[in-house]
């Protein structure tokens, strides 16, 4: 039925099977949309936000998707600026994943602000003393970059590409993509960093407060570093999941191995910096603010369950050191099981890091009369947080079906006559 739209030389399932496969995901999407409309029409009373948790579960989801979407800017930087040409075989998918992550982040923000019709206020009435203003500027501009990077993929659809003007636009966009990629890398470095900087300057929250270089706390650099390190892990993870679902090999092993190796060294160096940062914070910064570092990980039974030492161990050792060590070893990263384990742990690790930087500080008591604040999100928050996942699956499925996302697919999966 839609065979004229499917790229040449590749095989796809029939349209009814495709629609049937997507139906459960569409239902989840509709559930999320319903919750989103409730938040917009009835207001933020639909959430469990309170004076301690002013940004709800969404703030973590926002930071997490931005971090795992970092694979797009870092792959673009490696390909267009550092000349790692092999990555042209995965860059389209990295861009698509980045586009999904950033559009999801903006959607979540549009729900979180409560008054999405006033989103333009941040540009018109900009508070030029706020790192969040910088984040909003860079995030919007970088989303524009990702859209520009995604457009040529859409224009390369078999039918659209037959139109000369569209073919030329697509070709010329590829011609100057390095300019857009460089702009995207610049914007990404700043907004990823500023998201960390927002936490690092909170002197009233000693768990996340850090020392500075000029106006930038250490967390500024750690956030950018971790997004560049773990973003490619998510790109590889989603590529492997796509290969598993489609039953096809879509990217050659040497491409995955190169990206995994670079990601591994980035993780390894990042985790050393993170350990030094944690050690300095525990032995110098926190004591200077009148705290013993164990204060941050001990409390009553329920707080230890959510915010105990296990979180520190999981973030740094289990989801930091271990994936880093696996990925820097050629023998280990070429083992499929270990590779999959490493990229899964890496993805969880960066999400945990964002959790500990935005949710944990709000839970911890700061004053002597404070107690641990635990937070249970409402179903509307959960539904709207799952909404981007469903949206991402649908967009990936449609893009994979109709667009030439994987340049090596035809070669790796010849159609037998």
């Amino acid at each position, binding site marked *: 039925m839609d065979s004229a739209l499917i790229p040449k030389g590749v095989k796809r399932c029939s349209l009814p099977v495709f629609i049937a496969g997507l139906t459960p995901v569409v239902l989840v999407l509709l559930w999320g949309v319903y919750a989103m409309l409730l938040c917009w029409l009835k207001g933020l009373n639909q959430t469990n936000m309170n004076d301690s948790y002013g940004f709800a579960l969404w703030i973590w989801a926002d930071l997490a998707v931005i971090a795992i979407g970092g694979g797009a800017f870092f792959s673009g930087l490696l390909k267009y600026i550092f000349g790692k040409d092999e990555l042209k075989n995965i860059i389209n998918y990295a861009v698509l994943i980045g586009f999904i992550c950033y559009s999801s982040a903006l959607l979540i923000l549009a729900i979180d602000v409560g008054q999405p019709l006033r989103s333009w206020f941040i540009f018109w009435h900009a508070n030029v003393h706020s790192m969040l203003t910088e984040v909003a500027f860079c995030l919007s501009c970088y989303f524009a*970059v990702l859209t520009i990077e995604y457009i040529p993929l859409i224009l390369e659809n078999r039918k659209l590409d037959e139109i000369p003007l569209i073919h030329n636009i697509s070709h010329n966009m590829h011609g100057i993509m390095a300019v857009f990629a460089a702009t995207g890398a610049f914007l990404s470095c700043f907004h990823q960093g500023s998201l960390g900087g927002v936490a690092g300057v909170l002197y009233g929250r000693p768990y996340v407060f850090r020392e500075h270089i000029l106006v930038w706390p250490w967390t500024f650099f750690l956030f950018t570093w971790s997004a560049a390190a773990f973003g490619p892990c998510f790109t590889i993870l989603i590529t492997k999941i796509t290969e598993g679902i489609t039953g096809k090999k879509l990217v050659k092993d040497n491409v995955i191995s190169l990206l995994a190796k670079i990601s591994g060294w980035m993780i390894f160096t990042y985790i050393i910096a993170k350990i030094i940062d944690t050690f300095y914070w525990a032995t110098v910064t926190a004591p200077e603010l009148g705290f013993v570092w164990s204060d941050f990980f001990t409390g009553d039974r329920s707080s230890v369950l959510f915010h105990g030492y296990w979180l520190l161990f999981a973030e740094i050792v289990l989801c930091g050191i271990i994936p880093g060590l696996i990925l820097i070893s050629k023998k280990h990263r070429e083992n499929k099981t270990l590779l999959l384990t490493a990229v899964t742990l890496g993805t969880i690790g960066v999400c945990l890091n964002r959790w500990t930087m935005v949710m944990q500080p709000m839970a911890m008591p700061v004053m002597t009369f404070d107690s641990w604040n635990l937070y249970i999100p409402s179903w509307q928050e959960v539904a709207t947080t799952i909404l981007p996942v469903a949206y991402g699956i649908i967009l990936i499925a449609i893009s994979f079906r109709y667009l030439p996302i994987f340049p090596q697919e035809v070669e790796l999966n010849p159609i037998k006559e």
Partner: protein
Amino acid sequence: MFWFSFEWVWDMGHIVFMGGLWYALGILGIGMSYVIIKSVKETFYEDSTGHGDNH
């Protein structure tokens, strides 16, 4: 925010923040304008035979 907005102040914060924003938007705008003008020119005013698939 523009310099003619009543909230505008000629200080370093406004110049750096808004300058950075307009600089980034300028690159994207000029880049896309270049692509569209070049593509229209190639399509309608030159004897273009297409670029092949070597993107």
